[in-house]
């Protein structure tokens, strides 16, 4: 295989999106830790880091457009650039959700703890695990693993429903816990949305590998 000019740029693009993916994954984990361990300093770090993530998104956007305009990628190269360009804003949105969880942590950490966070930790664990596996599957271009990850989203959704009901009951039983419970509801919703976004990433992994659009298809 001859060395192509585009290869160098595709390598840079791959490095950049993996770095963004890793940073996003860390943001989700740190945001949850800041909540569970009541570590407000860590929550602030998550919020600060969001600017770095926004910057990474812009860099990837610029590079993707440059490759499309100047190198005219085709076939797998084209699918790769398109996938990266579509995964990038998804990662940025996941990081925004991590930021919102950190915001909630900053409020909740100043309130008495009303919930043991067990199910929320479980949701976060599944979401972070899904994200990690989705990024590994992107690197390995593994469509099978990506499809498996999509299935895992159901577990997050089920846990979300459970958490939702528990927090509702908590609010009814203990009206003084309403503020905290409301914030926790948002945290649960953010985690549930992260699961949806990871699903979108996995659908793009399948596109990269198989050139098949599985989004909006009944079999997912």
């Amino acid at each position, binding site marked *: *295989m001859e060395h192509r000019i*585009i290869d160098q740029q595709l390598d840079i693009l791959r490095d950049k999106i993996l770095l963004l993916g890793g940073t996003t994954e860390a943001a989700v984990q740190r945001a949850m830790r800041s909540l569970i361990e009541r570590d407000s300093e860590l929550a602030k770090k998550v919020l600060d880091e969001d600017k770095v993530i926004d910057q990474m998104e812009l860099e990837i956007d610029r590079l993707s457009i440059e490759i499309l305009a100047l190198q005219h990628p*085709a*076939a797998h190269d084209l*699918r790769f650039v398109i996938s990266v360009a579509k995964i990038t804003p998804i990662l940025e949105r996941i990081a925004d959700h991590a930021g919102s969880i950190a915001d909630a942590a900053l409020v909740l950490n100043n309130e008495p703890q009303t919930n043991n966070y067990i199910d929320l930790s479980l949701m976060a664990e599944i979401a972070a695990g899904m994200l990690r596996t989705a990024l590994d599957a992107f690197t390995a271009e593994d469509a099978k693993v990506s499809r498996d990850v999509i299935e895992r989203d159901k577990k997050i959704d089920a846990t979300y429903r459970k958490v939702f009901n528990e927090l509702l009951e908590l609010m009814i039983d203990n009206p003084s816990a309403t503020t905290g419970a409301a914030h926790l509801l948002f945290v649960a919703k953010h985690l549930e949305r992260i699961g949806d976004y990871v699903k979108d990433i996995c659908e793009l992994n399948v596109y990269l590998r198989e050139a098949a659009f599985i989004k909006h298809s009944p079999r997912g």
Partner: protein
Amino acid sequence: MESKISISNLDFFYGKAQALFDITLEIPDRQIVAFIGPSGCGKSTFLRTLNRMNDTIPIASASGTVRIDGEDIYEAGTDVVALRRKVGMVFQKSNPFPKSIFDNVAYGIRINGIHNGKTDLAERVEKALVDAALWDEVKDRLNTSAFGLSGGQQQRLCIARALAVQPEVILMDEPASALDPIATQKIEELVVELKRKYTIVIVTHNMQQASRVSDRTAFFMLGKLIEYNPTQKMFTNPDEKLTEDYITGRFG
């Protein structure tokens, strides 16, 4: 979709050297098919088998069948002149005759005797020039030399000349490779426009050109047809690794 040209098991030889191996391919009516592949892959040779232009090479021989509208053009007794009227050709280098613009376009009409008097001839010339998107640029200087035209205009004149004899298929061998981007764009727009009336086969080294204008793309290598698929598929998700390697520049 109905086939205009149907090629089966075509082998082609220059003397003992085999240039095409067992090509089987259907070219649909009023579509644009692009042939791509590295130099020497046989795409131009193949193009020329479609109107028997290779007959002019004494050592050339072909086996297999090429059917146009169901008739085998290699069958004994085929009227090659009529075939070439039906299957016109435009070459890489524009080759206008050292005549006026009008006479260039009128040439084929006259020698084929397919006009009915002077007015009819003029009408046919005008129609061909209009169809080749050249009329507006030359209508006031039809009697000046064709050599006064720009490269892009000369190429469109050659297309008008091909259209004048009312072909059904137009073969184009790198029609825009010597032109600047603006002239190239005009030729490409013209090719897409001509699809409404004609079946077009275009050989090109310019992959973007193939992807821009064609409905289907055939990729050739070393005289073999490697892949033939809708253009959209060829450039986003080809079936063959060789095709992928070629269109993404993995080998020269």
